[in-house]
């Protein structure tokens, strides 16, 4: 798309340098741990070494004697105010601090408040807790067995460990299609538990002002407004009503879904500040972050396809067991316990489908949050893209050909999927064709055949994914009843500059730049003159925050529509100034002019000035607008990725030789930022494909609890990503945009896994679970007798 505005205005399509960067490159960002308030105290947390244990006693005597330690807060302290339990976003309950037992290793047991970071840590070491270990349930399948210990003894009527059963689609029709199918394939997949591990961990400063009764919390949150409401609902009974709570989300060092939930640490810090009357800072360390914060994934999936012999897919069936840990603390829209997993028919025209998910309690940290994806989309995409390759292998068909055969045709959009979604727009063959051209697909297949003949292992993997973003339409989408709209409040100053405030919160996505570009596009005010603010609930309009790639689809649309409201009023003012009727005015970027007399015109700056100095009689002065955008539908970005891997037969090491990513996220606001989002998403997609997993031993001991064992990709493992675009605008979004922040995290893992399986297919390998570690591959090579 050619930009409609000049580079000076910087509307859509300009790779404008980011407005937020001058502070970050100078070390002048303002992250939560950078903030120091007068009289501030420090909090540190005592955590459980056991995955399941009764707390027999907590002795704080020695801790209270440590120099600098002022208080130790336990579950008993909080129970006095009925704050020892809190609701989760999924209407389950979660302990803030335990009074009876702990349910996972690293669970919060007590908090020490002290005058310094170091004194608080000393205090933690001195707290003595006497535990009585209880039987541990680690395996979610065993958790559902009749003799499994019931974990949630706090729930009086709970007789088992099942959290929910959820299903979608046509069970009977799907069964019939499978019974009648010429070919069926079935694949078990485990999508392991992983952690977003943003480089900044979580933390807060809770500052309760006793004089005004006002609580200010500076915290690492992706959703400050929702958090404020949750705080008001949880602590209203102790006097914290919503107008006296201010949540400030300062610069955030990466979020990826991990900074959506309310963690116990935040609540304890608030309680401590209220009780002590001083600001209390809590910053978790990396091990706490990996061990106790919400995890992502942990889906055990059985995926099946039914097809004709020619490769036409006729039906899909998926059965999933979801390990949620000890409480369902996912951050899904409330009506979707398994998120948007029912996007699992993917990019294909599947007539019959049925999907079911069972949620289970185990002795693991709670969560089920996203890892840079829109509510379980990654799990769904991995399953469909993997099992599609299993089918191709079964039919001895080229995986690209099988995909081309089954893609939803371009002319069928808007397309109603068998599981109930209305896909807005797409051109799937175009994206795959472009990816195949760019990587030289056919030449690679030839090379592979030659290498195979020489005993070398090389694989080519495809993933043609469809995402589902922009939650969401209020009819279906809410969190604890709050509809998932988002908002923009736009004010034009007399000199034609602007301030725009949004209900979202950037964590690196570049909202200060892209939102300004949206306003620039709509009003012709240079993006450099549009100040964007988010994250302070005292000033920003209410919105549900930034996750699930919803900022551009929802808040971005709110920005565009607020600007259009301004334009409507500006038109009236222009008509007054030009002594013309509104019907005779035409808008071109930045000015209204009289039809047929282009010299008679008023710029948006002149109009803004008039709005404060010479507004028409009977009109309110000023030039501002608010929009709360309720999206009519979700957006469905898509893409095709192709990955080439070489496997070392001596070590089992998988090396990504090339990776071509073709993305279609609709119209693009800032191409540079979109590419950056895709690069980052690709590396974060490679991470669980090849490196990352958090596992537990039979006693519930975490096996990936620090960066010693939990391996984030470095620049060395990351290949140089090759990115391309096709552009299929969303028909219902005001800007035709779809959102892009997570596409690559969603699309990359199956491309990599498919490439590895492809490299080993001639040895009879049909599937390898991620992460595909050298050890896993080496064991396969050894078993097949080809290890060097």
């Amino acid at each position: 798309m050619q930009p409609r505005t000049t580079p000076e205005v910087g509307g859509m399509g300009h790779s404008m340098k980011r407005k937020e960067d001058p502070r970050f490159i100078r070390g002048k960002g303002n992250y939560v741990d950078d903030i120091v308030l007068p009289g501030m105290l420090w909090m540190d947390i005592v955590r459980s070494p056991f995955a399941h244990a009764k707390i027999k006693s907590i002795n704080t005597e020695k801790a209270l004697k440590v120099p600098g330690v002022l208080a130790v807060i336990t579950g008993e302290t909080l129970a006095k105010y009925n704050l020892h339990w809190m609701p989760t976003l999924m209407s389950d309950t979660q302990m803030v601090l335990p009074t009876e037992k702990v349910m996972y290793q690293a669970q919060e047991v007590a908090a020490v408040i002290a005058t310094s970071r170091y004194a608080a840590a000393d205090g933690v070491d001195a707290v003595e807790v006497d535990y009585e270990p209880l039987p541990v349930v680690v395996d979610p399948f065993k958790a559902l067995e009749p003799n499994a210990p019931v974990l949630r003894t706090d729930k009086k009527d709970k007789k088992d460990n099942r959290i929910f059963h959820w299903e979608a689609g046509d069970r009977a029709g799907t069964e019939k299609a499978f019974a009648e199918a010429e070919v069926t394939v079935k694949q078990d997949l485990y999508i392991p538990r992983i952690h977003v591990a943003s480089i900044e961990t979580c933390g807060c400063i809770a500052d309760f002002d006793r004089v005004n009764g006002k609580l200010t919390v500076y915290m690492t949150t992706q959703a400050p407004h929702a958090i404020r409401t949750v705080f008001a609902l949880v602590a209203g009974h102790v006097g914290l009503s919503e107008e006296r709570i201010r949540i400030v989300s300062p610069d955030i060092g990466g979020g990826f879904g991990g900074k959506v939930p309310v963690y116990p640490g935040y609540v304890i810090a608030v309680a401590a500040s209220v009780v002590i009357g001083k600001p209390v800072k809590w910053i978790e360390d990396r091990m706490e972050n990996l061990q106790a914060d919400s995890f992502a994934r942990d889906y055990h999936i059985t995926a099946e396809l039914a097809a004709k012999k020619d490769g036409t897919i006729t039906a899909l069936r998926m059965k999933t067991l979801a390990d949620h840990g000890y409480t369902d603390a996912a951050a899904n829209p409330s009506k979707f316990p398994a998120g948007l997993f029912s996007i699992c028919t993917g990019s294909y025209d599947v007539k019959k489908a049925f999907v079911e998910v069972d949620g289970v309690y185990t002795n693991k940290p709670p969560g089920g949050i996203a890892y840079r994806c829109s509510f379980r989309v990654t799990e769904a995409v991995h399953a469909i893209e993997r099992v599609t390759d299993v089918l191709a292998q079964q039919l001895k068909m080229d995986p690209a050909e099988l995909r081309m055969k089954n893609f939803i045709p371009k002319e069928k959009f808007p397309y109603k999927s068998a599981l109930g979604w209305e896909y807005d727009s797409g051109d799937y063959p175009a994206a795959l064709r472009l990816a195949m051209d760019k990587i030289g697909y056919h030449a690679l297949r030839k090379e592979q055949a030659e290498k195979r003949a020489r005993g070398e292992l090389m694989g080519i993997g495809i993933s043609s994914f469809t995402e589902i973003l922009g939650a969401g339409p209020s009819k279906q989408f809410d969190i604890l009843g709050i509809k998932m709209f988002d908002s923009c409040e736009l004010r034009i100053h007399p000199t034609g500059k602007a301030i725009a405030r949004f209900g979202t919160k950037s964590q690196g996505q570049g909202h200060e730049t892209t939102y300004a570009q949206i306003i620039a596009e709509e009003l012709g005010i240079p993006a450099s003159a549009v100040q964007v603010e988010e994250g302070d609930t005292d000033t920003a309009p209410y919105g549900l925050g930034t996750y699930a790639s919803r900022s551009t689809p929802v808040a971005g649309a709110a920005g565009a529509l607020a600007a259009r409201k301004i334009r409507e009023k500006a038109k009236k003012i222009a008509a007054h100034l030009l002594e013309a009727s509104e019907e005779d005015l035409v808008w071109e970027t930045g000015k209204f002019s009289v039809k047929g007399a282009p010299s008679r015109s008023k710029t948006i700056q002149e109009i803004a000035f008039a709005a404060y100095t010479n507004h028409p009689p009977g009109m309110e002065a000023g030039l501002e607008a608010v929009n709360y955008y309720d999206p009519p539908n979700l957006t469905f970005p898509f893409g095709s990725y192709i990955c080439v891997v070489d496997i070392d037969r001596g070590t089992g090491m998988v090396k990504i030789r090339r990776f071509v990513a073709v993305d279609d996220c609709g119209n693009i606001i800032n191409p540079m930022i979109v590419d950056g989002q895709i690069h980052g998403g690709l590396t974060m997609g490679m991470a669980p494909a090849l490196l990352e997993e958090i596992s537990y031993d039979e006693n519930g001991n975490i096996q990936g609890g620090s960066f010693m064992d939990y391996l984030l990709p470095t620049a060395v493992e990351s290949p140089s990503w090759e990115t391309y675009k096709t552009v299929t605008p969303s028909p219902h979004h005001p800007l035709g945009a779809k959102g892009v922040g997570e596409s690559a995290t969603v699309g990359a893992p199956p491309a990599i896994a498919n490439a590895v399986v492809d490299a080993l297919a001639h040895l009879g390998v049909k599937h390898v679970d991620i992460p595909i570690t050298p050890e896993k591959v080496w064991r396969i090579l050894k078993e097949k007798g080809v290890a060097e």
Partner: protein
Amino acid sequence: MATHDIRVTVNGTAYDAQVESRLLLVHLLRDQLRLTGTHIGCDTTHCGACTVLLDGQPVKSCTVLAVQADGRQISTVEGLEKDGKLHPLQEGFWEKHGLQCGYCTPGMLMTTCALLTRSKNPSEAEIREAISGNLCRCTGYNNIVKAVQFAAERLGKEA
């Protein structure tokens, strides 16, 4: 806890400080000198967000005791800009979109600053190797490599 009187020179300015034996250099910089550009991202010397230069060498300041810096020169991200002029690396990161959330950026800048001191025209592989002790979760590293190449070229022209 024993305390020690130390003198460190940070970005050319000398500071006297009284520190506990166990105080980490990163906490001296952040909490006592209030130079908060240097960040903390892990406890195990893996993430590199806390990278500073100690006598010109990149070190992870979460694994150096403040007392070890006594009498030595420290450079942090706050010292890169000179006389209102950005360091070519700062320009490169801005120009090439080498940062997103900005949290790893100061560490990346200091590590690559040391790289460009010892290698005027590093290859892509050299750049990737040099920053392999600095984790970034946002950028996928593509544009960090480009940012460093931009800076190397700029420094080459200035030389």
